[in-house]
């Protein structure tokens, strides 16, 4: 141990001992990053009204209250439906846009790209009130279609960036070869290009799903009526009081996120990591 402290730690010959503070600091920060979220999990199994840690008596009380509530169940299904449909809309639309912008060399490509990533730059509150206004006119307010549309434009920049960067490292000559052998352009794309960027496409799809599933502000404005999302209801519940049911829902949401991360790890491997 003492030897290790005196050993050089980097190219600059600084020893491990001299930067012990960095190791301690980094460990504390990493703990602080992870624990606040994870601590909700055991708390959600507490029997008490005042989420205690560690729980004195364990129970599934808050899970029961969640699963037995028609409102929460309805909101959960709305969120899952919206997220799934957002994934189905944003992924193909984003992938073909990324492909089009990558291959077309017209002068407006840069402008189009900038326009397509603006949903990432514009404060989400503005997107929300803007969408609220249009959807009132289009009669899409409180509809699943409207929700999916609005969430899709939030997800588009992510899909565009993830698949765009995969296309950049892909050798377009392969597609050229396929076409010179007689394949139509779309066929060359589907059979040659798509399989090679599939990891990026899968990652993009999962990001699109999560973007919609976790979105709060837009949902606050344009979801409601028969179709409120889970996040909208959670946010409203948070403003009123600390309902322990939210801890149970949070745990389930952490589960969904972790599942997505694992899926991204399994299917996104080979895309050069994150």
């Amino acid at each position, binding site marked *: 141990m003492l030897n290790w402290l005196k050993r050089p730690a*980097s190219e600059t010959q600084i020893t491990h001992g001299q930067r012990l503070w*960095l190791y301690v600091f980094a460990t504390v920060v990493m703990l602080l990053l992870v624990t606040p979220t994870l601590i909700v999990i055991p708390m959600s199994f507490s029997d008490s009204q005042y989420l205690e840690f560690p729980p004195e008596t364990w129970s599934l009380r808050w899970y029961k209250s969640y699963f037995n509530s028609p409102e929460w169940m309805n909101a959960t299904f709305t969120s899952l439906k919206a997220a799934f449909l957002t994934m189905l809309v944003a992924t193909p639309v984003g992938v073909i*846009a990324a492909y089009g912008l990558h291959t077309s060399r017209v002068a407006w490509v840069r402008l189009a790209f900038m326009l397509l990533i603006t949903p990432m730059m514009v*404060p989400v*509150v503005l997107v929300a009130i803007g969408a609220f206004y*249009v959807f009132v006119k289009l009669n899409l307010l409180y509809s699943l279609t409207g929700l999916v549309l609005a969430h899709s434009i939030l997800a588009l920049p992510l899909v565009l960036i993830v698949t765009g960067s995969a296309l950049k490292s892909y050798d377009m000559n392969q597609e050229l070869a396929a076409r010179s052998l007689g394949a139509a352009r779309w066929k060359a794309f589907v059979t040659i290009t798509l399989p090679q960027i599939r990891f990026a496409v899968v990652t993009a799809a999962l990001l699109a799903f999560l973007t919609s*599933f976790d979105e709060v502000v837009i949902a606050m404005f344009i979801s409601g009526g028969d179709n409120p999302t889970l996040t909208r209801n959670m946010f409203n519940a948070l403003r009123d009081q600390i309902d322990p049911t939210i801890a149970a829902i949070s745990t389930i949401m952490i589960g969904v996120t972790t599942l997505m991360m694992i899926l991204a790890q399994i299917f996104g491997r080979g895309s050069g990591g*994150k």
Partner: protein
Amino acid sequence: MVALDSNREGLRRDGRLERLRLFGLSSPALLMVLVVLVIPVGWLFYVSFVGADGQFSLENYERMIKRKSYARIFVTTFQVSLLTTGLCIMIGYPLAYFLSQLPNRLANLLMITVLLPFWTSLLVRTYAWLVLLQKKGLVNDWAISLGLWDEPVKIVHNMTGTLIGMVHIMLPFLILPVYNAMKAIDKDYLKAASNLGASPHRAFWTVFFPLSTPGLFAGSLMVFVLCLGFFVTPAVLGGGKVIMVSMKIVSNIELFVNWGAASALGVVLLVITMVILWVASRFVNLAAMTGGGH
């Protein structure tokens, strides 16, 4: 010769058509962004210049200048954004440095501690802090049993709680680009520096740190811009005491149904964001910033 020319002309026309058709592949995406974002924001822009009487007027903007409450909201917004960015740099930079020095396998493993919160719902994380920081929460309990303070302290529903939550949520946005920039630094430069007699300290500050600044700049910018428009965390953890621009926009619509006032605030927020991004884009590659996050 003539045949050759017309052939070349034809090829060129075909090429142009092909490029246009390929560009057309982006039209569904463009159409969606146009309908759901560009047109509505354009309309908000228009509404912000319409007064209560339905005529063109600057009253919505004048109100912002005249009323003290609006000035306070802008000050709070910048305060929160600057403090969050500063704290993120102070906490995130050393962590990114620590991770960048580790062997790849270990670094990737520990990176999960950054990515897990990054992927976890913002609402869930905000809720977690609300539970931890409340009067009867874990932080107060532990601090009292450790003897740090005697009575439960109010650490949530105020600025402190807001900052704790914001920093926690924004940290990954800073760490990821900084880490990527640090990973790209050629270690031979540091060897050369020490070989020439620089102390570890000097080698770090004159060689390593400057080379990591593009990542640091991109990350800080990202955090700052995201903070400016933030809503959920200050709304929940601020307890009505920390009012940011986006919250005022929401209350203008939800409570007062005043689209003019909300739109004008939105336009100002958007312009500030865009100006910052535009100025920054002259110094840093924004594509790298957006691409670095994932």
